[in-house]
C-alpha cells in the first residue's frame, strides 16, 4: 500500500436548490482519502447523502444540485494532482470513465434502450480513444474481452438490446463497461440492490476477483452492511450528509463508537437462526432543511444528553494510527461509553449483543 491517496476529498459540500429558491445541503463537509487498491465503503440510510456524494465526485449532479464548497483532488498519473472541481469541458469528459468510472444501481436503466449493448461499448471507447483509430474488429474484441471477464457470453450480449438481458446480466454488462477503459477508481452506487441474493453473491465475488486481478480502488456505496464488510478495507458511516464514523472494517463492525453505526448493525437481521432479533433505530432520518442545532442524530439517540442538543460534535479520534493507515474516528460526544453490546436505546431485552457484530464482520 502506498502513502499518497489517489483521491482526496476535503470539506465537500453539495446543496440542492428547492422550490422556494432555498438551498438544502445534502452533503455537509465530507473528508476522506482513497488509497490505491483500497475499497472504501460508504454506508448509511436512504437520504444520508451517500449517493449524492458519489455523483458529486464525478460532477454528475442533477440540474438542481450544486457543489458549494470543498476540494476533490485526483492523483492519477500526475502526482501533483488535479482539482476535479475545476476541470471543465472535454478534460472533465475524458477524465470521467477513463480514470473514475461508476456502476449505478441495478434497478436503473443504465443502458440506452434503443442501442445494442455492443454499440454502447463502442460509443464509450470512441469517446475516449479517438486517435487510436479503433477499428470495428478491435472495438468488438476489446468489448468481448471485457464481457468475458464478468463471465458473460460476448456473442450473445453484444448483439442484444438492453431489454433482452436479465437484471443480473445487465449489471454484469455495466461492470464490464465500467472496466473497459481500465479506470483506477470505481464508484459503485448500490450495485447489487434490486438483484436476488444469488446474483448479489455472484457479483460481489466477481468484484473481489476483478479487483485482485486489476488492482483498482473502489468506493462502495451501500446500505447493505454485510456486503460492505465483505468488500471494504475501510468503512465510513454517513448520516445527514456527514461522515459520522470512519475506520477500518473491523473497527466499525466489531467496535463501533457512534450510536448510529451501532444502530445500523443491530438493525440487520442476523444470518444465523437463533441469534438476537434485529432492532430498528427509532424515528426517521432528519429533514435536511431543518436540522437540529446540535448533533443531527441526537433526537433518535439513546445516549443523547443536553450537551448533544447544543453542540454538533466533530470527528474525534478513537484510535490513532500511523499515516497511510486509517484512524478510527467517531463524531460523538459520548463515544467512550458507546459499545455495540450496551446500546441503551435498544437494549431493553438485556441480551448480550455481541453476536450480530460477529455475523456481519466475519
Amino acid at each position, binding site marked *: 500500500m502506498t502513502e499518497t491517496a489517489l483521491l482526496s476529498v476535503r470539506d465537500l459540500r453539495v446543496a440542492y436548490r428547492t422550490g422556494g429558491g432555498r438551498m438544502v445541503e445534502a452533503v455537509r463537509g465530507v473528508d476522506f482519502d482513497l488509497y490505491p487498491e483500497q475499497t472504501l465503503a460508504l454506508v448509511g440510510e436512504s437520504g444520508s447523502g451517500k449517493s449524492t456524494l458519489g455523483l458529486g465526485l464525478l460532477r454528475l449532479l442533477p440540474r438542481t444540485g450544486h457543489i458549494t464548497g470543498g476540494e476533490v483532488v485526483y492523483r492519477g498519473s500526475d502526482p501533483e494532482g488535479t482539482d476535479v472541481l475545476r476541470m471543465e469541458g472535454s478534460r472533465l469528459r475524458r477524465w470521467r470513465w477513463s480514470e473514475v468510472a461508476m456502476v449505478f444501481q441495478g434497478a436503473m436503466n443504465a443502458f440506452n434502450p*434503443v442501442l445494442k449493448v455492443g454499440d454502447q461499448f463502442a460509443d464509450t471507447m470512441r469517446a475516449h480513444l479517438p486517435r487510436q483509430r479503433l477499428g470495428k474488429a478491435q472495438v468488438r474484441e476489446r468489448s468481448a474481452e471485457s464481457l468475458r471477464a464478468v463471465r458473460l457470453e460476448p456473442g450473445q450480449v453484444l448483439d442484444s438490446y438492453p431489454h433482452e438481458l436479465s437484471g443480473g446480466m445487465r449489471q454484469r454488462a455495466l461492470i464490464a463497461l465500467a472496466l473497459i477503459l481500465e479506470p483506477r477508481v470505481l464508484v459503485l452506487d448500490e450495485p447489487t440492490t434490486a438483484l436476488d441474493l444469488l446474483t448479489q453473491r455472484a457479483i460481489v465475488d466477481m468484484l473481489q476477483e476483478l479487483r485482485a486481478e486489476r488492482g483498482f480502488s473502489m468506493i462502495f456505496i451501500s446500505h447493505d452492511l454485510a456486503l460492505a464488510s465483505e468488500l471494504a478495507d475501510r468503512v465510513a458511516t454517513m448520516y445527514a450528509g456527514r461522515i459520522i464514523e470512519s475506520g477500518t472494517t473491523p473497527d466499525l463492525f466489531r467496535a463501533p463508537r457512534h450510536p448510529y453505526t451501532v444502530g445500523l448493525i443491530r438493525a440487520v437481521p442476523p444470518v444465523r437462526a437463533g441469534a438476537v432479533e434485529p432492532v430498528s433505530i427509532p424515528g426517521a432520518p432528519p429533514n435536511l432543511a431543518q436540522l437540529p442545532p446540535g448533533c443531527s442524530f441526537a433526537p433518535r439517540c439513546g445516549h443523547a444528553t443536553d450537551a448533544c442538543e447544543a453542540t454538533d460534535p466533530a470527528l474525534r479520534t478513537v484510535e490513532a494510527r500511523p499515516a497511510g493507515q486509517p484512524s478510527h474516528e467517531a463524531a460523538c460526544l459520548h463515544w467512550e461509553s458507546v459499545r455495540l453490546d450496551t446500546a441503551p436505546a435498544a437494549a431493553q431485552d438485556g441480551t448480550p449483543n455481541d453476536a450480530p457484530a460477529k455475523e456481519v464482520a466475519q
Partner: protein
Amino acid sequence: MSTTAPDVASVRTGERTTGIARRILRNYVVRRVFRSLFVIWVVTTVMFFMLRLLPGNPVDTYIATQMRAGGSYESAAATAAGLFTFDPSTPLIQQYGDYLWALLHGDLGNSLTGTTVVEKISSGLPWTLFSVGYALLIAIGVGLLLGVLMAYRRGGVLDHTVSVIGSVLHAIPNYLFAIILVVFGGVQLGLFDVADIRGTYTAGVEPELSFTFVSDAFYHASLPVTVYVLTTFGTWALVMKASTITTLEEDYVTVARARGLSDRRIGTQYVGRNAVLPMIAQIATQGSFVFGTAIFVELILKYDGISAELFAAINDRDYATVQGILLLMTFVVVFSNLLAELVNSALDPRIRESANGAGG
C-alpha cells in the same frame, strides 16, 4: 444464468409456427398492412351508406336545380335520365356490391359529369398533398428543434416565448387563422396580393419540372402552408419539450455523461432518439388532422386542392366522386398511421419484440 428474452420468444414462436404462410401472417409488417386494409374497408362501407342517407340523390338534386331555373319536372326528369347512369331504383345492397367489385379492380367509377373520378381527384389532390406535406415537414422540423432547445434551456427566454406564442396560435382553429391572415395580412397591411396569390399556380406558367413552375407553386402554396405551420408548430415544440425533459432525467443519460460521451452524441443518440419515440404516433394523428381540416383552409384561401372538388361533389350528391375523394383521404390517414408504426418499430427495438412475441 437466467434465460434471456429472445430465447423465450424464439421458443414460443417455434412451437406455434406450422408453415411459411403462418410465418408470413405473423410478420409484424404484414399484420399491420392487413389491419390497415381492414380499416379502409370499414370506413369505405360506412361512408357508402352514410352518403346515401343524405337527403336527396343526384337525380333529385339535378331536377331541383333545373326546376329552380324555370324548367318543368317532366322535362328535367327526362334530361336527368339521359344524362346520368345513376338509377335510384337499384337496390342499395346491389349498388354497394357493384361499388366494391369495381373498387377491387381499381375502378373508382365515373362522376356525374362523365369524367372518371380518378381524373377529378388527380387534378386537386396533388396540390393538397403537396401543401400539407410541405407544411408538416416545416412545422415538425422547426417544432422538434425548438422543443429540444427549450428543454435544454428550461426557463429561458426562448422557452417562455415559444410556450406563449405556440399555445395561443394552437388555440386558434386553422380556418379562422386563414381568415385573419387574409384580412389583416392581405387586405389591411398589404403584405401580399390576395388576388395574385390565390390558386395553385399562375395562369400561363406551364406545369412542368422547371424552376419557374416550382417556384411559382411554392409561392402560391405559401399562404396555406403559413397557416398550417403557424397553427401546429407550437404543439410540436411543447410536446417535444415535455418528452425531452423526461428523457433528460432518464438514468441512461446520466450514465452516458459518466461514460464521458460527447454532448453531441448524447444529444442525438441518447436524448433525441428516445425523446422522439413517443412523438411519432402523434405525428401521424396530427398530420391526418391537418390533412382533414385542410378543406376549410383551402376554401378560404382559394387554393385549388381537393376541397373545391369535394365541396361541389357533395352539393351535387355526386356519390362516386365523394366516395373517391373520401376513400383517398382515408387512405392517406391510414397510410400515415401505418408508416408511423413502422418507423416506430424501426427505431424502438422493444416494440418489434413485443409485437412479434406476444402477438399484440
